């Protein structure tokens, strides 16, 4: 069983790839976490194509959670899901860093899409100290 895929959608390529590196520390299968940050020409913003490609790569048969960094990246992510989405690809409303960390560790234990989605959503209640 392949792990649930995680797509990190950000306005910043560095933000998305940096978070992906952090998730790598948590014992996550690197190929199951795909960063989709910034515009195609490297500016701050989101890229429809980057998100669509990321979802395709992250989906290894167990579904994908799509984590947007801010509300405005939801717009592009939604557009992609409307065109290429299927039941196994879920846009999750969660804090970007904590949600990704919770989702990644949960996915790494082999949990299913629903469990991974819930873990990301519950990150909203986590406190740092």
């Amino acid at each position, binding site marked *: 069983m392949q792990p649930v895929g995680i797509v990190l959608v950000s306005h910043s390529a560095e933000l998305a790839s940096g978070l992906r590196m952090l998730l790598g*520390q*948590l014992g*996550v299968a690197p190929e199951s976490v795909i960063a989709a940050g910034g515009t195609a020409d490297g500016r701050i913003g989101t890229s429809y194509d980057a998100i669509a490609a990321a979802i395709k790569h992250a989906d290894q048969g167990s579904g994908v959670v799509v984590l947007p960094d801010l509300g405005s990246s939801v717009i592009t992510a939604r557009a992609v899901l409307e065109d290429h989405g299927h039941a196994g690809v879920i846009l999750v409303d969660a804090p970007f860093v904590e949600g990704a*960390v919770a989702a990644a560790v949960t996915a790494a*234990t082999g949990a299913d899409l629903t469990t991974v989605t819930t873990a990301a959503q519950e990150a909203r209640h*986590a*406190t*740092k100290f």
Partner: protein
Amino acid sequence: MPPSSDPTLDIVLPAHLHARPAGRLARAAAELGCRLEITHDGRTVDATGILGILGLGATAGATVTIRATGDGAQQAVDDIAQLLRSID
């Protein structure tokens, strides 16, 4: 007061409980057949919750207490203790 019969163990951490070891702990705890909690500085969290563990801010030299309840609790405490003693 929790029932004293639950297997409990204090462990002095050889390293900070930061992202990598915390990830190992959370994943190992998820494999256990029972519930295991970890306490540090008066805060207790479920050991399967990565964010809770990271929120403990447990550093090298700090003592943490682990307690397991349910089937295989003693084995769980022993296994997780071994893991915590080997973090770096």
